[in-house]
Every structure is written in C-alpha cells, then in structure tokens.
C-alpha cells in the first residue's frame, strides 16, 4: 500500500455569503498524481489555499506525514515541503526570471551580506537544464509572454524539491508541446516519490497523467476514484451531476459569405508581420498557434488596444480607423481578453457595474444612470449565462474564475457587438461552463454574429471553428476550412512553420 503523505478531513470554509467548502475530504499518497476536479467555484483553489497557509480553515484537520499540523502562512507551508503553482500568475514583473524563482532563498557571498547574482543565475540555469526549460535566467519577467511566465512559475514551484507539489491549472496557458514537457517533469517527480495534486479543466489530460481523482461539487466532497477504473464521461457526470456531450464538429451550413471584417497587411514590430484575413458573417474563425505566435497581439491591434504600425481594417467594406478600443467598440467589435483580471474586470465593483460598463450610453439619459435597466440587464445575463452568484450586487472579486469569465462575456453580449473576439474564452473554465460557452458561441454565430476565437486548445479549435487560421511568429502560416481533411497534426505543422 502506498505511503500516505497527506490527509485532509472535514475541511470547511466560509466567505461572506458563500460556504466555499463544507466538510471536504482529501488525501494524497507518496509518488502519485492526484487530480482535484470540479466545476468553477467548486472550491478547489480554496482547499489548496488552506493547505498552503493562505487561508485558515474554519474547521477540520490536516494530517501530514502522520502528524496533525497547523499551517499559519505560506512560509510555513514551504518549510513543511508543500509548494504550489497558483492559478493566477504570481511573479514580480520587474525582477528577472532567476530572481523570481529563488526569491527569499538568494545565494549570498561576502560575509552573507551581498547577493551572489552569478550563482543565482547558475542555479537557475541548472534547474532549467534539469527540467528541460529553455528560458534565459537573466531576462525580465515583464518581457515574457503569459505562457513563459507560467513556465517560470512551474520552475519556481519545482525548485523547492517539495514533498507535495500542487498545480492549480498549470496548463491553462500552455500549448501542447509545453504540456508534454511538463508531463515528463511530473512523471519524473512522481517516480521520485513526490505527491502531486493536479487541478485542471482539461479532461483529456487526466488519463495521461493522473493516478487518482477527487471530485468536488459546490464546496462538497463527491468522491475519490482510481483513474484506471473510470471513464472521463463518468468523471464529468460526477462533477456536474448530469451528462455532457463533447467532440462534435460545427455545422458549416449557416455560414454566409458576406465579409464583415477585412484585415489587410497589419504590421506591428516583430510580433505582427503582414497579417491579412477576412471574417465572414455568422462565422466562427479559429486562431490557432503556439505560445507567442502573435494571436493576442493581432486581436489587440484590431481592437485598438495597441497602436498599429501599418495596415488597414475594413468593416462591411468600409475602411475604419481604429486608434482606441472606443473606435472598435463603436464599430461593433467586442474583445474578451485572455487575462480577465487585468484587462477584463473591475474586480472591486459588482457584477451589474461590470456588465454595463461597455454599454453605458444605453444606460444613461442625458448623463443620468438608469439603474433599473442596469439591474434588469444584469439579472438577465446572470440567468442566461448561469453565473453562480448570490446576487447581481456581488463584487466580482468574490466570484470564482469561471464565473468571472462569464461576467466578461455578459459585458459584450450586453453591448450587442457584431464582431466578437474571444481570446482563450474557456481558459480556466470548467467542463460544464465550457459547454455552456460553446453553446453560446454557436448561438451567437447562428444569430449572425461573427466571431474570432483564439484558442490554444486544438480540440476546442476543431470543435468550434468554421475556418481556422494558424499563426507562427507573427505571420499567418495557413488558413484551413474545418472539414474532414483538417487534423491536429496539420495545424501543428503549420504552427511551427517558421519563415525567415
């Protein structure tokens, strides 16, 4: 029988208005990968934050290596050998990669008074070599893409050589090849006897990596299963309490040929190179590519979030100047960013304010707010998108990641934009909510809205897009109709097709 590393029993935790956890059970063996599963807001992150000393539990016991323990703060968790890769990025952007990884554990020289930067970079390089990560230890984190930052987080957590390693959606920002190398790392750690808690909404990963899985729903414990003895569909129904369908192709038929958006020869520094494409009415146009391919940059440029160097944008045949997001929004474009906390939400404000913010002209009469209409619209969106919240007056910061994402979607639906750019719309979103969002995208397309969907999940691209554009290093390297001839392999080939 495997050696027990950790046992959490009867864990409960309440936040104002929300019982986030009630009487939850969890255990972990040495040398296993134990998946922790559940829909958005199920309480996964909260449970892990209790284990790492960020939150204090209201009740329950934690037994670690046979002893009952209290974990007062993150430092104590680290000393116990418990480390975590958080769901949100947690890096000091002005420091270098190496400085971030060994923060608080800096090597010193000269009577332990001075920092030894050389040693620090060497240590980091060694760590990277060991993990097969290719990053420059001396690079500033702020110059890294989201995906690379995630790799830094992973490397940092691994550098502790902990007994328990928690990964809260480590792959959300990663592409398939990076996920592969992460899995190699995880398997090595497992054989070294590390216990790994693995949180992910990507069901296809579970069979590859997890030994056991614990499922939570609405803050309660549902059950723990052995991965070899269960199908993904069974897990999903444990998670959501109902059956979910997956893996089907979009219907191509209701797509019209009318060009809604034409983008011609966009250029911006080294990140966007001569990008041209069309978007048709009622179409979902998938954007595939590896990390840093430039998809987000293209989306932001079209939306006016960043200035362009050259290129033209036509909407319904008319040339438009998009200098600011305001211009884009006025031209019927909506943008759902890949980093909702930083760019999508006013976390300290409530749901209704966030839903109304892009449509304020519709909610004012000569400057006065029409609060009644705002409330009505917010309630409508909360119902339509099934946002889990006590009320429309809840502050957005108190919602789970997935529900926050739905609030952003609600914002653009309220604005009724014709062209919607969804950048990683299901990142960090659970399977149930994902399915709702897919349905929603299809409905929107059927209503005649035109959608650009940037996604790093190829199954999602294949499931949703009518057409697929593939990018690599700032260029479009392929444009494909999503029919029988298309495959993940073909897309990957184009995504790595470097030109010059």
């Amino acid at each position, binding site marked *: 029988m495997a050696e027990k590393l950790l046992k959490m029993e009867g864990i409960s935790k*309440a936040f*104002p*208005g*929300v*019982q*986030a956890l*009630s009487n939850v059970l969890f255990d972990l063996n040495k040398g296993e990968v134990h998946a922790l599963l559940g*829909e958005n*807001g199920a*309480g996964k992150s909260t449970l892990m934050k209790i284990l790492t000393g960020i939150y204090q539990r209201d009740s329950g016991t934690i037994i670690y290596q046979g002893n009952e323990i209290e974990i007062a703060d993150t430092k104590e968790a680290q000393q116990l050998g418990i480390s975590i890769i958080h769901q949100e990025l947690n890096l000091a952007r002005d420091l270098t990669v190496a400085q971030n990884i060994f923060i608080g554990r800096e090597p010193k020289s000269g009577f332990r008074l001075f920092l030894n930067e050389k040693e620090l970079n060497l240590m980091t390089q060694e760590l990277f070599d060991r993990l097969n990560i290719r990053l420059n230890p001396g690079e500033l984190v702020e110059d890294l893409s989201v995906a690379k930052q995630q790799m830094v987080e992973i490397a940092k957590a691994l550098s502790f050589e902990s007994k328990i390693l928690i990964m809260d959606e480590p792959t959300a920002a990663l592409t398939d090849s990076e996920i592969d190398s992460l899995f190699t790392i995880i398997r090595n750690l497992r054989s070294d006897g590390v216990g790994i808690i693995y949180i992910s909404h990507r069901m296809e990963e579970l069979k590859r990596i997890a030994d056991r899985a614990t499922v939570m729903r*609405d*803050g309660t414990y549902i059950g723990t299963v052995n991965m070899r003895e269960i199908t993904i569909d069974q897990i999903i129904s444990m998670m959501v*309490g109902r059956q979910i369908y997956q893996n089907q192709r979009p219907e191509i038929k209701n797509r019209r040929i009318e060009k809604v958006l034409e983008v011609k020869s966009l250029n911006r520094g080294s990140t966007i190179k001569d990008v041209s494409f069309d978007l048709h009415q009622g179409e979902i146009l998938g954007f595939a590519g590896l990390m840093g391919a430039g998809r987000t940059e293209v989306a932001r440029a079209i*939306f006016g*979030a960043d200035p362009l160097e050259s290129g033209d944008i036509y909407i319904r045949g008319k040339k438009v100047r998009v200098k*600011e*997001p*305001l211009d*884009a*929004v*006025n031209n019927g474009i909506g*943008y759902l*960013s890949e980093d909702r906390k*930083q*760019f*999508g*939400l*006013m*976390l*300290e*404000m*409530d749901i209704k*304010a966030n839903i109304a*913010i*892009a449509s*304020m002209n519709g909610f*004012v009469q000569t*400057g*006065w*707010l029409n609060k009644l209409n705002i409330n009505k619209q917010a309630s409508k969106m909360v119902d339509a998108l*099934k946002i*889990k*919240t*006590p*009320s429309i*007056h*809840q502050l957005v910061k108190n919602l789970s990641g997935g529900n926050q994402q739905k609030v952003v979607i609600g*914002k653009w639906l309220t*604005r009724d934009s014709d062209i919607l750019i969804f950048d990683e719309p299901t990142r960090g979103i659970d399977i149930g909510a994902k399915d709702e969002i897919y349905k929603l995208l299809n409905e929107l397309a059927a209503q005649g809205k035109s959608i650009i969907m940037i996604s790093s999940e190829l199954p999602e691209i294949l499931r949703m897009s009518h057409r697929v554009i593939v990018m690599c290093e700032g260029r479009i390297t392929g444009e494909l109709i999503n029919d029988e001839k298309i495959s993940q392999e073909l897309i990957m080939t184009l995504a790595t097709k470097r030109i010059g």
Partner: protein
Amino acid sequence: METQGPQLIPNDKKKIHLKSNAIQQFLAFGSLIILIIFFSIASPNFFQFNNIIGILLSTSVIGILALGATFIIITSGIDLSVGTVMTLCSVMTGVFITSMGLPIIVGVLGGILTGATAGAIAGIAIAKFRIPPFIATLAMMMIAKGLALVISGAAPIYFTSYEAFTEIAMGSIIPGIEIPNAILIFFGMAVIGGIILNKTIIGRFTFAIGSNEEATRLSGVNVNKWKIIIYSIAGIFTGIGGIVMAARLNSAQPALGQGYELEAIAAVVIGGTSLSGGKGTILGTVIGALIMSVLTNGLRILSVPQEWQTVVVGAVILFAVYTDVIRNKKAN
C-alpha cells in the same frame, strides 16, 4: 432551479452591501459624535450655537476642496494642487472684479472657470501625457502658486468696494436663521457632488477608472476624456472653494493655500475613501472634514498648545484610518 450554485448563506447581498457602506459612515460618524461629546464635556463653551456655526464655517473651504478631491482619489489619482489653485482662483476672481471691473457674477464664474481650466490641464497632463497624478499636480501646485503671485503682483486684492461679494460667503440667504452662506454652499456642493458621483455617468466612470482603468478602456470607454472631465470637475470645486475663501476674507490673498491640499486629502481619507481607488463616498468626506475641524476647534477651545494640536491631529488621522482598515478587513 437546480441546486448547482454554491451553498448560499440565505441572505440578501444587496442589504449586506448597503449595510457595509452604512457601517463605514456610521463608524466615521460615531467618531465625530464621540469627539463632540468629549469636547462638550471638557468645555462648556464648546457645544454652543455660535461655536457650531464657527466650526461649520471653518469646515467650508477645506470641505469644498475635499469634495472635489474625493472624485480624484476614487479614480486612484491624487491632487496636490488644490491649495494653490484655490488661491489662483481667488486671485483671478479679484482681477476680474476689481481690475477689469466685470460684474461680480462674471468674476465668480471666471474664478470657477480658472479652477476648471487648471483641473483640465492637470487632467490632460495625466491622461494624455501619462504623467503620474502625484507629479502632474505637484507641478501644477508650483505653477499655480507662482502665477497667483505674478498676477496679483504679490499683493492682496481687496473686495472692499464690492459689498455684495463678501455676502457670497458671509451673508445668509435663509431669513431668520443666521447661517452663513458658506456653510450652505458647502452642504449644497456636497449634495451636488453626491448626485454626480452616484447618479450620473461621470460618477460611474470615476469608480470604473479607479477600479481598473485598463479594463475600462478596453470596454470602449474613452478613459482619457473622462479623466480630464473628472479633474475639471474637481477643479470646479476648487474654484468654488477659492471664491468662498475670498468672500470670507473679503480679499484674495495670493500667498495662502499651500498645505490645504493635505488637509483636504486627510478629510477624504478619514471619511473612508481609499487611496487605491474604486471606493469612496461624499458623505464620508463631509464627515471626515467635520472631524478635522471639530478636532482643531476643540483643541483650541481647550487651549491645548499648538505643537500638541499638531501631534493630536496626526494621531487621530492614524487612528481613524486604522479603524477603517479593520472594518474593511472584517467586511472581507
């Protein structure tokens, strides 16, 4: 409905939300009441009609400045220029009325316009030229200070030949009760400020920008424009403050004003508005300003030596903000 949501503790969030806001004002209001009771016990001369009017009158200028500063601080900005811009506005009003011989009402509007212009310039520096508010308004503080001296020739401008002018602050439009207009202007501006902040699109964007400026911009809001508008509105408050000041002193004093900005900011913060933006109320600011002037007046009535007054005010600021911090922590 299905039972998919997290288990909700059955209560109406809206009520809680309102309550928490109410608690904040209750706390500040509570401190104010405690101070008043304390001083009333300590000196029989404190709680008397005349003195209460005196306190309100001494709150009016700083209070009006603080109302404008509330907007700025909610956007997560700061305005260090209110003190000297206020002075510049009084001087301009003086020039309009006494040197240029314009009607009083035109002079008053000119003074207010001066404030709005200074606010707009600071707003443009901040929004368009991306100069941090602290620096933009620090520079504006110096520029306004210099200009007030240049324009006035470093001499006070007297309104003595314009009897009606001083009535703006010291007259009493309510017949029978002798409440100086300055006090009414302060409370009137508070009501107007409250309405702008809570009922109009300007207020909504004030909060939105303070909460997450980039997300607001990416929602298609012309953040630059709104910031300039918000700084201009704060400038209008400053201009009105300057006019009340001039009317009360019956003169524009070009060397006054510096230091008032910190008092205004202190009032705003004691009133529970967060310097990190996104949160704040007008009522809180009114209470915060009153706390400051009750304290000053009370300590003076008790003849506490000046140097100790300073120490006590510092300590009270610490204490007031600390209770606010605790309350916020509890609310979370």
